[in-house]
């Protein structure tokens, strides 16, 4: 039976450069890439669609309407994309409110998102979506099985794996252990250009709940002595080990 799937996609700065004079990150005009676990989320959505049929809507909340990341989601197999602008850093409650507002206006059986994101790592979005939408959360799923309206997952919960189930509609969050995200084929990249893509600004009001006092790089002053000559390297590193450890 076919399902309407919504997959939440985040874009993050490809590389965060640190300004050595201030020790602060430089985040103006970054190159964006798809956030790591968003890739697992898109992959899982595509696998469900391949097995049962249906339609995948990729939803991305971001600061500007740059489209390469959304195009990648479409090339991986999403059917249509919706980009919402108005993103604020470090505000997972706001992001979840914006995403939920949009999701409510769409038809859906399953919402999929990464359990956390590789940059901000608050892990709040899936649980907030579950509450805002009033649907169950099947979190940190490393295996997803579907029959009819029922979803069974294997949940990766620290030192336990737990079997859980719930009925649709539901939010599923995934981890990097859930699957191996595909690299889009060239033909699909070309075809993705013709897939529907909407860009809209969010109407949800932003409310500031915290103030940033500082955001500084953790000091790392490593020696960076690198040996390309293996024998020399082994010799020198053995000396270091001997000094530090009684061997």
């Amino acid at each position, binding site marked *: 039976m076919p399902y309407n799937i919504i997959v939440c996609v985040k874009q993050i700065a490809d590389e965060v450069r640190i300004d050595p004079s201030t020790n602060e*990150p430089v985040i103006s005009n970054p190159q964006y890439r798809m956030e790591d676990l968003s890739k697992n989320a898109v992959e899982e959505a595509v696998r469900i669609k391949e097995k049962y049929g249906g339609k995948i809507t990729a939803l991305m909340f971001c600061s500007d309407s740059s489209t390469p990341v959304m195009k990648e989601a479409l090339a991986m197999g999403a059917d249509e994309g919706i980009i919402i602008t108005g993103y604020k850093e470090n505000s997972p409650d706001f992001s979840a409110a914006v995403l939920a507002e949009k999701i409510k206006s769409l038809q859906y059986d399953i919402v999929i998102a990464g359990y956390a994101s590789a940059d901000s790592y608050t892990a709040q979005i899936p649980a*907030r979506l579950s509450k805002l939408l009033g649907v*169950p959360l099947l979190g940190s799923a490393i295996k997803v099985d579907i029959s009819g309206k029922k979803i069974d997952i294997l949940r990766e919960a620290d030192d336990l794996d737990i079997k859980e189930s719930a009925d649709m509609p539901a939010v599923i969050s995934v981890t990097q252990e859930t699957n191996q995200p595909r690299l889009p084929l060239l033909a699909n990249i070309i075809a993705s250009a013709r897939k529907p893509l909407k860009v809209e600004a969010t109407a949800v009001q932003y409310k500031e*709940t915290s103030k940033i006092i500082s955001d500084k790089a953790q000091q790392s002053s490593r020696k*960076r002595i690198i040996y390309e000559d293996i024998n020399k390297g*082994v010799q020198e590193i053995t000396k270091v080990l001997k000094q530090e450890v009684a061997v």
Partner: protein
Amino acid sequence: MRALLFSDKLAFSEMMASLLRDGFDIDILAFPDHAADLTGYGAKEIKGMEKEDYAADSLADFIAGMSKDYDYIFIGATVLGREAATMLSALTGNVMKSEITKIEISGGKARTSRLYYGGKTVLEEESDAKIFTVSQGLVEPSRTAASSKTTKVVNQKTSKITVGEKIEKPSTSVDITKASVIVSIGRGIGKKEGIEKIKELATLLHGELAGSRPICSDYHWLEVERQVGLSGKTVSPKIYMAIGISGQIQHVAGMRNSKTVIAINNDKTAPIFQECDYGIVGDLYSVVPLLINAIKQTGQS
């Protein structure tokens, strides 16, 4: 200031109590099996739940019912804890801060720190947050002289999900955060059998084995307790050897405080070479045996 602490993991509750008991009047909400172990960590009261609850929504509903008695709620940053805390925030409308590593309350505001950009920076914030998830391993748990009152609480909220069988993963009692030498492996090891050679090196150096997330959480070639990084342990040994580890920021977040970092990787451009003191560019399967021999020889001399 009254604070309620909860974690589904005993070690987390012990650590949070040790961290927070000086700044707050703490009570601990605990799973039934943990309640007895938690007296003596500085809590006024241990509220032992009637039954375990692994469903985040019913757990959050239950904690929401108690939250009016507290100024702050601290929940251990486990998979269950993160979800329950977030749902609690959604239910009560109270602001939440995730994965905090430091907290100070002044003038009614919470000043917290946490890792940002995957661990590249530390973000210090001031907020009205009342709910926090707390990172693991921030302090060494310690007991106090005072004992705690133990009570029973009945938790009977319903969940939207059905929790079935729980499967325990292979575990170890080794605590890598205490090791002074860590030999850590990544995907570059390629095959599980490859670990034997690394073990030999670790034994020679009186060190412990550790690994990257793929090794511990995906392939399960090492126990999950040995994972170093943003979603694993934070370690600070004298020697950290990263073998076949690329050095992605989420891994470096967990080993940045090591004294000396040694990297072995066959890719000259691997980011780990920016984060090491000494590095060898080469195939780990050639380098490690040479290193073992060299250490054995110097040992004899």
